């Protein structure tokens, strides 16, 4: 099994491969990046928050232990203005829906682990998500595929 990437490695690779995302905070177990992603023509400001599994004394740090991507600007359109459908492929935040986390990969399919570099996976996946989101807003159709909770994972479905 590949070793877990350190936060320093994540930060260094991000600075190299995605310099447009600015590191806004980091400590031993957390890093936050913020900046523009522009998959097509429009620019979107996102934040990527990564909390690594770690301990402060005997207290475990709380967090998702995976990179969390949120759309900051423009505000996430939770409901399609024409069809009334809810935006697909987000982990819904029921209190602040527009802060819902983007679902970029299938957790069951082991598409991401802490051995992967965020800059080489999460960042292009967020761009893919935003491109599909633009297409969904324009046409009402999410064409980028994906799995909904309750559906069989791709390998099992095949």
């Amino acid at each position: 099994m590949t070793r877990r990437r350190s936060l320093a490695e994540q930060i260094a690779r991000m600075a190299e491969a995605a310099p447009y995302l600015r590191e806004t905070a980091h400590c031993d177990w957390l890093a936050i990046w913020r900046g523009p992603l522009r998959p097509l023509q429009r620019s979107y400001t996102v934040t990527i928050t990564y909390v690594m599994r770690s301990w402060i004394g005997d207290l475990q740090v709380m967090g998702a232990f995976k990179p969390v991507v949120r759309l900051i600007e423009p505000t996430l359109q939770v409901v399609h203005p024409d069809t009334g459908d809810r935006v697909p492929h987000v982990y819904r935040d029921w209190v602040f829906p527009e802060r819902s986390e983007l679902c970029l990969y299938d957790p069951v399919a082991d598409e991401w682990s802490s051995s992967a570099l965020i800059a080489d996976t999460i960042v292009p996946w967020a761009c893919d998500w935003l491109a599909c989101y633009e297409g969904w807003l324009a046409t009402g159709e999410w064409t980028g595929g994906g799995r909904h909770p309750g559906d069989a994972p791709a390998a099992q479905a095949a």
Partner: protein
Amino acid sequence: MGFMDRLRGSTVLREPVDILLADIAIRVQLTATDHNKAVARYQTINEWLERDGSPLQGRVQLLYAQGSMAIGATIAARLRTDEYDIDIIVELDLPSGLDAETILDLLFHSIRGKPGSRYYSMTSRRNRCVTVSYADGMHLDLTPAELVVPQLAPRTSLICHHKPETPEVPGFRLVANPFGFADWFKQMTPLDHFAEAFAKRAFDAEQRMLVEKADAVPVPPQEEAHRKSKAVIALQLLKRARNVRYDSRHNRRRPPSVMLAKLIADGANMTTTLSEEVLHQARQVHETIAAAHRQGVLISIFNPRCDRDCFTDRWPGTRAEQATYLGDLADFVGKVEYLRSGECDLREMQAVMVDLFGENPTGAVFKSFNEQLGDRIRTGQSVYRPGTSNLDLTKSGLLRPAAPVIVPAATVTTPRHTFFGGDRRE
């Protein structure tokens, strides 16, 4: 085509706005299949005019395409249907002394033939031409012409004007040289690196459309047939935008296509990308007409190959008509500026393009673009430009490159992934 041209060819259709504008043009233009059909049809009419007993037997010198058909800029004549008007010159060798009415009637009766013959119920007489209307929506407008003094530029002709509904008003003859204009236009708008990239996209789109329509495919059109310069595409888009605006202005004559073609050829291909060319051309046409308007006169444009051939003899009739189109052009310029600004997403771009080019082509173009985009992402083929978050549409396969793509070793395809979460759709 040299190395630099091939290199540029891979970049001219780079941004989504350029691809979407090209796709709109592809959706409204005459397909290569329909182009071949039109050519076959006017060749058949030529044979029909030469039949035994035809009033024009032995009198037809030549049939050739004129207008938009001759310069490759034909677009659908209607907004919601694929109906095309194809302009043809019928060059005749007639006895001297015939008036305009007689010549137009002669061509009308020669094509129409006797009751029961193939064109009888399809033929109608217009002011300057005879129209043959086909069931699939294609119209061939056949303009009778006679060559004039040979000292003038090649194929300078006399055409006819006579209103059939007012037979008591005598008709008249006009000097025209559509052949010379088409030749001049092609010289002014040479095929450049853009043409190859556009041809590949148009060819692929036509193949898809043929499959959608489940048409019998007689001979698959070749990519060659789709090669056009940026200026021609800009002309097609400006004509489409004009048609959209004038569709709701009943009984208002439109700014003539041939005037737009002349103005666009004057400043053709001075840009890099399609959206830049469209913007440049719209500004230039606006400025030329506005200059006349500021002087208090009506725009007057002549055929560069025939100084007696006035392209603006029927429009604008008044300064108010001129001002109306100037307003349209200013609006067009502003909206294309916005499309290019990088400030709008696909939804906003779609809304702007629906306004400019109509619902019919725009909806289909965005649906197709979104399907192609999603397909590449779903199958793990999205590629980003190194050091940016910008999707490389060529390397991602949304666009067939004009030249083979050399993928730098440093370029990494996005690892395959599956979006998750959200509400299940029933």
